């Protein structure tokens, strides 16, 4: 979120020139971490008009902001329409950084598997054809049993082909850091089988061998099916996934997987289950957090004791506290211990401020939401779908007929201001550009959605998938684990999936063993009496 770059830029701000400040901010943005959503079209936060001070820490409160994209669509940076502004440049470079280059490594595994399976499928056919071609004279004739074998061979090859296609020829959705142990094993097995069959000369025997080779391949495929697919389906472990920045957590049940496959599985679910990561929501307002100890006075009593008087000041309150320790080791540790004691005894009112701040924020959000809902409802009443009969039967009132895009633009204006204020209050303005809101409005109008359906996207934070743009380059995640990543899941294992600015910590616990007992209740055994005899002591 651009707030981060604002904060870092803030500290650099001093009497430097404007152009060097721009360069520095661009550098800051390069350095600043990229996020999941690469849509950066928001024009209202990163305003850097010359001479205007950088946005202060409370800029995310939208009350006193200059709401400009409701009325106009230009960016106030002093650039004209035809030149790329600072933001566009950074946006472009950020997009390039975000997407990794198309890796050839991604396709090596499937290519190898594809070659091997082609070789395996062709071998039985080659067994049948090559001896006919090469050694026709030296062979004994082979009668009806061979034909039976031919037929069964043909059918088995067909089954093998279809099931290979169904099971294995899928585009991989993830590249994993290590090889799959089981897949490697299976490929080696197939290779050995196939290679060892190229050793016979007797034709009838060859045909029988070909048939048995196909049988063996079918069984290997069955083995692959069980090892690679079925074993993973029956739930055995419960994974707890916690996002490190804001504590959003979910529990999932998985089967026996290796760590890397479990990681891919978790990431699949992450993109559709977890609410999107919003860095702007993480910070407590500065007024609460700035608990600076403004003054320390360290007194030494007889050289043996340290006495620390600490004054803390906050925006709201001034507190002082003290701590006393004995200098047994040396001076500095004694002093620091005294400081810790002083800090511990400080009368802390920040919970109070936090509580009121939260209540105030809730109230503000609710107020904005109410305004937004009313504005959207009103806006939707301005248009209605044109029926076919109306168009034909009312020639005397020619109404202007619009397509969805124009209709959306027409009704967008009255709700734009309320929408922008609401997004700013809930810190979502980075995820929704004006263009995306217009597109969504157009979509909703086309599908006859009500205002509430239109607003569903903005009132609740959706999963990360909702904010993705489809570029085929993939997302870069790092699997951090203390065990080798091909080892199987077991109890107490912890690994984490790291992205640039947050990480998901995954803890593995086994599912409990269930002892299910049985109790039969006769339906006639449900009988009741009144309980009416009580004894009271007086």
């Amino acid at each position, binding site marked *: 979120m651009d707030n981060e770059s604002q904060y870092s830029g803030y500290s650099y701000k001093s009497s430097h020139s404007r152009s060097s400040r721009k360069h520095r901010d661009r550098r800051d943005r390069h350095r600043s971490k990229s996020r999941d959503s690469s849509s950066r079209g928001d024009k209202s936060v990163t305003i850097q008009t010359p001479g205007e001070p950088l946005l202060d820490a409370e800029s995310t409160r939208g009350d006193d902001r200059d709401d400009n994209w409701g009325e106009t669509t230009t960016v106030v940076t002093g650039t004209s329409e035809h030149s790329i502004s600072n933001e566009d440049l950074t946006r472009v470079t950020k997009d390039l950084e975000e997407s990794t280059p198309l890796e050839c490594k991604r396709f090596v595994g499937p290519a190898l598997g594809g070659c091997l399976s082609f070789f395996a499928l062709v071998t039985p056919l080659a067994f049948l054809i090559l001896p006919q071609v090469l050694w026709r004279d030296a062979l004994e004739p082979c009668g009806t049993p061979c034909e039976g074998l031919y037929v069964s061979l043909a059918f088995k090859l067909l089954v093998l082909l279809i099931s290979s296609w169904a099971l294995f020829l899928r585009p991989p959705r993830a590249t994993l850091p290590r090889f799959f142990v089981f897949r490697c094993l299976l490929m080696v097995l197939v290779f050995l089988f196939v290679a060892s069959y190229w050793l016979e000369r007797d034709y009838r025997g060859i045909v029988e061998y070909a048939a048995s080779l196909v049988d063996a391949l079918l069984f290997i495929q069955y083995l692959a099916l069980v090892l690679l697919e079925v074993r993973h389906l029956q739930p055995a472990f419960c994974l707890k996934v916690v996002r490190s920045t804001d504590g959003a957590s979910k529990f999932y049940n998985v089967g026996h997987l290796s760590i890397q496959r479990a990681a891919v599985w978790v990431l699949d679910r992450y993109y559709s289950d977890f609410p999107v990561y919003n860095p702007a929501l993480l910070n407590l307002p500065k007024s609460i957090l700035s608990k600076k100890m403004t003054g320390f006075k360290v007194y030494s009593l007889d050289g043996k004791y340290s006495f620390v008087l600490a004054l803390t000041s906050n925006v709201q309150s001034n507190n002082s506290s003290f701590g006393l320790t004995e200098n047994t080791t040396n001076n500095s540790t004694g002093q620091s211990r005294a400081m810790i004691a002083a800090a511990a005894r400080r009368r802390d009112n920040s919970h109070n401020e936090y509580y009121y701040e939260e209540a105030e924020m809730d109230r503000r959000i609710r107020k904005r939401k109410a305004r937004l809902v009313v504005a959207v409802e009103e806006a939707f009443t301005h248009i209605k779908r044109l029926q076919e009969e109306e168009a034909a039967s009312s020639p005397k009132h020619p109404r202007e007929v619009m397509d969805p895009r124009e209709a959306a633009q027409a009704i967008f204006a009255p709700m734009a201001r309320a929408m922008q204020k609401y997004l700013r209050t809930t810190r979502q303005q980075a995820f929704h550009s004006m263009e995306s809101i217009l597109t969504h409005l157009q979509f909703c109008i086309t599908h006859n959605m009500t205002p509430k359906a239109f607003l569903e996207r903005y009132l609740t934070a959706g999963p990360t998938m909702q904010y993705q743009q489809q570029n085929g380059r993939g997302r870069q995640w790092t699997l951090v684990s203390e065990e080798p990543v091909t080892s199987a899941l077991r109890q107490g294992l912890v690994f984490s999936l790291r992205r640039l600015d947050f990480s998901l910590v995954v803890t593995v616990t086994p599912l409990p063993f269930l002892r299910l007992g049985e109790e039969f209740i006769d339906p006639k055994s449900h009988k009741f009496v009144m309980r009416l*005899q*009580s*004894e*009271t002591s*007086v």
Partner: protein
Amino acid sequence: MSFVPGQPVTAVVERVEIQKLRQGENLILGFSIGGGIDQDPGQNPFSEDKSDKGIYVTRISPKGPADLAGLKIGDKIMQVNGWDMTMVTHDQARKKLTKKKEDVVRLLVTRKSLEEAVKHSKGCYPKP
């Protein structure tokens, strides 16, 4: 001791006067009651007639005020301080016994042995 609806109930009663004992905040009498017109009379172990819905003494604390006053387990309480106890609910009976402003309760109780004693004594004296 059953009653016939519409006919007066007659019984031989003994007058028992119990001084309440102060225990902390409460004034206790030292016995437990059971029965009442809202209770199930079939479960009463002390009544002869299992449709009798009167108030019975079900337990006496040894050496308590009731024990010292001569109340016996299984007695049916007919009156408490003038209030009738033959046609009351369980809770009403409890309230009449545990009024905080009264230090002493005067009960009229009846039991089988009283009837026997009166019959016996009646039989002894020839009628003039």
